[in-house]
């Protein structure tokens, strides 16, 4: 009896399937529960990978519930590539459609933030500009300036207080998250990505800059949101965390 990998694979992921015939204990007895070693290895190692990637989700729903979520997710969406540091792309979308947890509306966006932190952690290294480069621009050049950002720079906008939830679940003594929409900018100065809270106008400006719009256009868009918007504060945050890697002062190509 030939045991195909399709048969093996199907039985591995579905504990209700019988153990494929043709497998033994080496002494002529059917393999029986020995097959469960492989089933356990697959389920527990993939669950562990998800726990490492989504610690805040695990804290929010509890270890037992997280294991239940993982056990469904890993069977519906096994990893597509053999790199566990990339496993879990489906988690936010999966949580969106997962009935038992749909009453916790912010879970998918918190999962997206954890995903963003992980992507940032593994993103390519880059060399930030010297802040003096920006200061040396004429007012006209400054208005027309567009930027390249470090690949580890990720903006996430959410109708939920994702920054507050993340901080509340990762830092001792943090205050309760507010009931408000929040935008987060993930920045990685060297190796450790951190989420920074952006007020709405700053998020509008940052989104424009990341689309490649000129600094003056980004500033105008933010001022429409809030006439007291301070562009200098956003630029200070970006420069202070090495997020700007190149300035373009000519026309867009």
């Amino acid at each position, binding site marked *: *009896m*030939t*045991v*195909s*990998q*399709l048969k*093996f*694979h199907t039985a*591995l*992921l579905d504990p209700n399937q019988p153990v494929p015939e*043709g*497998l*033994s*204990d*080496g*002494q002529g*007895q059917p*393999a*029986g*529960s*020995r*097959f469960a*070693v*492989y089933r356990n*290895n*697959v389920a527990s*190692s*993939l669950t562990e*990978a998800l726990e490492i990637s989504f610690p805040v989700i695990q804290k929010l729903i509890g270890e037992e519930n997280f294991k239940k979520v993982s056990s469904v997710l890993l069977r519906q969406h*096994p*990893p*597509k*590539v*053999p*790199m*566990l*540091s990339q496993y879990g792309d489906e988690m936010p979308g999966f949580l969106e459609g997962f009935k038992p947890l749909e009453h916790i509306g912010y879970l998918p966006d918190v999962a997206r933030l954890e995903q963003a932190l992980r992507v940032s*952690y*593994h*993103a*390519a*290294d*880059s060399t930030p500009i010297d802040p003096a480069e920006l200061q040396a621009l004429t007012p006209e050049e400054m208005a027309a300036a567009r930027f390249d950002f470090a*690949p*580890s720079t990720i903006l996430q906008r959410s109708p939920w207080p994702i920054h507050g939830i993340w901080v509340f679940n990762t830092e001792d003594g943090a205050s309760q998250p507010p009931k408000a929409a929040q935008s987060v900018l993930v920045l*990685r100065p060297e*190796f*450790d990505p951190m989420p920074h809270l952006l007020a709405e106008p700053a998020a509008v400006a940052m989104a424009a800059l990341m689309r490649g719009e000129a600094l003056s256009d980004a500033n105008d868009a933010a001022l429409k949101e809030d006439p007291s918007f301070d562009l200098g504060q956003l630029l200070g945050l970006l420069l202070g965390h090495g997020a700007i890697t190149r300035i373009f002062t000519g026309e867009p190509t």
Partner: protein
Amino acid sequence: MLDTSHKFPELPAAPGVGYKPQHFADILDNATPVEWLEIHAENYMGAGGRPLAQLRHLAERFAFSVHGVGLSIGGEMPLDEDHLARLKHLCDWLQPASFSEHLAWSTHDAHFLNDLLPLPYTDATLTRVANHIDQVQEVVGRQMLLENPSSYLAFEESTMEETEFLHQIAKRTGCGLLLDVNNIFVSATNLKLDPRAYVDAFPLHLVGEIHLGGHDEDEDDHGAPLLIDSHGREVADPVWTLLDYTLERSGPKPLLIEWDADVPDWPALSAEAMRATAALEKMPA
């Protein structure tokens, strides 16, 4: 590319450990008696950040072994060419002293199952695995070592012993072998074989590296011992004894301590490496 290959053309016949990021500072401070490091290739395939930066530092001072855990060399489907390219990229960059993978499969139908799954030892498997290894060695551009698996069950369709299978593969492809002594002990216990007979039958002259790791103890449906290759504790005493038996026949080899789950602090890991040093030192000169 890191310019380190001239420093470490091969792994020394000395203890190495599976590298864990939490040991970075300890290793740079004082790695004694560890002389080389092994990484799981798949953990270093990101574009940048701390994982690669740590390797840049460590590669200045240590020989490296790149140990793949996800290529699925025994898979029924064609090898994942994207993944093969990632392995080549990593090896071209790090210039490791050794590159190895497993006699196992882990991917089917674009699903990666993250476990080293078993193969029947038949002519058909032999041809498929040999073709895959030819492809790997051609793309990566270096010799590969193939590791013996730990087994929890056997295929009734198998027509040859694992030792014979591995020997045939090496003959056909020119690959070397990685002998995991704990895996021998685990498989022999689970399938009621004689571990020393396995060593006797193994083509030891082709072995480029030896692995040692801890296992857990369980039982099967009939109360027979079932050992699990967990890499989560110290190497068991009978495995050290089997190592002595192996080294007496193979001569000195690079010895790797694998401790991947419940990773201990550096002193506990280097104590295991000390035992490996002792095993090498008590060999007849």
